[in-house]
């Protein structure tokens, strides 16, 4: 949502303001249209499709969490499924053991994951790249067993897991059913959190986070407190994925150790890469892919579902080498160039100030794609 164009405007460019404003406006219209469609969807489709769409939003949100850390900050995690699981269990335990209303369980789920994320972020300061990936991988492997551990069984319910009550439709909305309500609730949380992420990545803090990704030593030389930002990013990333986990407990209405196997983490990674590293809307594409492609693969061939999945993934990577977001940028660029040819007047105004900034943006985008 916040992208190079917006920042260029923020830099106070005067001359191409008209074009920038137009792009920004287009962007706002696209966003408004997308939200409108998202609001209408649950009333067009059957309950089960609404449930799937809810899951897409949830996976998209979880992938956004991973993206903040991997796409924007350059720290690798193969274990975000663990935070997803912790968030889900916090909600399940609060709702079923302590009778807390479901909406009050989301902030604690986020906070618990934030703290766990910070604790994980501390060793992350000493570990880089693949080593950090291994540590997070260990977390994902350990979580299901921890959930079964009998010292915690009073809370977690052991292998049997916890059955979670379906959130009730509030009394002031009698005409919608439980699936639609949960979708709208999830949509509201998702939008809120995407808005937060958009502001974060567009802010000074966001630029610091990305500077660390691009060149940590240079960032530190510019006065960025790299350890602080890295740890905080880890925490915020875990918070996002944890809230997604909490929502998933509400949607699935059941948590069990088998729900949070290593595959969940791998799926998030797949969704992240195919959606586009460092892109916010790309996360939702990742969510779509993670939920629907296994089903498509199975419908193509039961015996060779894994092969079909692999082939689809290869095709997607081949067509969109920098993820769905990169593909969208590419198509957008083509359209813009087309329009510029039609409207040469816009190009006529030379712009000395914006150009360097754009170049930086361009390089950044490239380095993100190379990551």
């Amino acid at each position, binding site marked *: 949502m916040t992208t190079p164009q917006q920042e260029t405007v923020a830099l106070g460019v005067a001359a191409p303001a008209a074009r920038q404003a137009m792009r920004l406006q287009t962007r706002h219209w696209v966003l408004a249209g997308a939200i409108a469609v998202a609001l209408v969807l649950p009333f067009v489709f059957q309950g089960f499709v609404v449930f799937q769409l809810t899951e897409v939003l949830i996976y998209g949100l979880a992938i956004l969490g991973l993206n903040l850390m991997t796409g924007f900050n350059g720290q690798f995690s193969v274990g975000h499924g663990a935070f997803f699981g912790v968030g889900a269990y916090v909600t399940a335990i609060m709702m079923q053991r302590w009778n807390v209303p479901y909406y009050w369980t989301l902030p604690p789920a986020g906070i618990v994951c934030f703290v766990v994320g910070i604790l994980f972020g501390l060793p992350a300061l000493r570990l880089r790249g693949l080593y950090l990936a291994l540590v997070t991988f260990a977390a994902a492997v350990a979580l299901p067993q921890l959930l079964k551990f*009998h010292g915690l*069984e009073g809370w977690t319910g052991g*292998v049997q897991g916890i*059955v979670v009550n379906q959130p009730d439709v509030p009394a002031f909305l009698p005409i919608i059913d439980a699936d639609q309500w949960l979708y709208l609730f999830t949509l509201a949380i998702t939008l809120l959190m995407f808005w937060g992420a958009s502001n974060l990545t567009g802010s000074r803090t966001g630029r610091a986070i990305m500077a660390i990704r691009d060149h940590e030593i240079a960032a530190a030389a510019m006065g960025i407190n790299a350890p602080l930002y890295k740890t905080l990013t880890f925490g915020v990333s875990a918070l996002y994925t944890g809230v997604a986990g909490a929502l998933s407990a509400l949607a699935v209405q059941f948590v069990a150790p088998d729900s949070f196997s290593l595959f969940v983490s791998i799926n998030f990674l797949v969704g992240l890469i195919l959606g586009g590293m460092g892109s916010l809307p790309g996360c939702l594409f990742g969510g779509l892919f993670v939920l629907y492609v296994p089903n498509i693969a199975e419908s193509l061939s039961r015996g060779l579902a894994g092969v079909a999945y692999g082939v689809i993934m290869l095709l997607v990577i081949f067509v969109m080498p920098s993820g769905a977001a990169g593909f969208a940028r590419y198509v957008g660029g083509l359209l813009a160039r087309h329009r510029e040819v039609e409207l040469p007047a816009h190009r006529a105004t030379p712009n000395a100030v914006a150009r360097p900034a754009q170049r930086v943006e361009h390089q950044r985008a490239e380095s993100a794609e190379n990551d």
Partner: protein
Amino acid sequence: MKHLTRRTVLAAAPAALAFGGPLLAPLPARAKQYGPGVTDHEIKVGNTGPYSGPASSYGTVNKAEAAYYKMINAQGGVNGRKINFVSYDDAYTPPKTVEMTRKLVEEDHVLFVAGSLGTPTNTAIWRYMNEHKVPQLFVGTGATKWDDPKHHPWTIGWQPNYQSEGRIYAAYVLKNKPDAVIGVLYQDDDFGKDYLKGVLDGLGPKHASMVKVKATYETTDATVDSQVVQMKSAGCNVIINTAIEKFAAQAIRKAAQIEWKPLHVLSGIGNSVAGTLKPAGLENSKGIVSDFFVKDPTDPEWHNDAGYKWWVGFMDKWYPEGDKTDGANVYGPSVAATVIQVLKQCGSTLTRENVIRQAASLHHFTVPMLLPGITINTTPTDFAPIKQVQMARFDGERWQLFGPLLNGAVG
């Protein structure tokens, strides 16, 4: 209004079952009544199973079920209706089970779901199925909780559950070793505790003190050696070994090593010759007793048995790629055969209500690979179709069945 109806119906359902069930069992062909997924030519049956993921080796159960329906269709179906078996992969993950089951119910409009595999996966859809009043037939898990017609009148189990097995071991010990000092080895989770509860219930309050050692293990443990030594030094003369194969084998081996010779009762989940007794040492395993309810396809005793011959023929023709030494391929067609029996009893009243009613009125039904004499019986208050097992003693080469069929029904 919606809530009122749902609640009323839920409350009324058990009552209707109690009064109507037995009378309606051999339903005469009255006017046709169809629920979702039924036409004059087809009945849609839903299913989920682990075709991929960590538990995919169990997926063969669902494939064998599909093969059985294929055979039934080739023979003309049930009352002229073919079975359209819609089965999806849930990778043994509860969220995927919920998604796929909702797809089955809401998009594919199946009449019911049958033979879905796994305890956590079935737990995830347990409430959904009961709230939407869609029969969840013959779940592929041995947990005891499925036998709960009062609170979950739309869910029914199939195989003997762990608690009833535990009761049978207790009864056996009481009869054969009145002076028993018992050690129970069990997995430290609900599955293990189900067994322990069965044993303690079976002993009754008077004899519960016979259990001197309750030793647990975690699936992550390296060995169970210390638990076995602990039992010996506590003076136990009976071990009820309910561990999964790896640990069951370790316990047998360790007992032999320390020359401890108790009465060794091995549970049904760990009694495979190939999986437990061979690794433990066939010589060490001599004299161990265990319980069975299906014919072991690797046991030559059955090679001239009509049921076994039928099964081999079925496998050769309809599921040739299936492994004929895998007990899961005995399990699958047996479950599917029970589903077909339910549909036969339904006649032309193929509604969800009638399906669960007929599933709860199976009388003396048997399938080829059940042990001789074991029958499937349900009533509106008894949702545990198979309750009987037979004890067997290992003679150093194979299991020798002995004694009468035993019934460990819970409740």
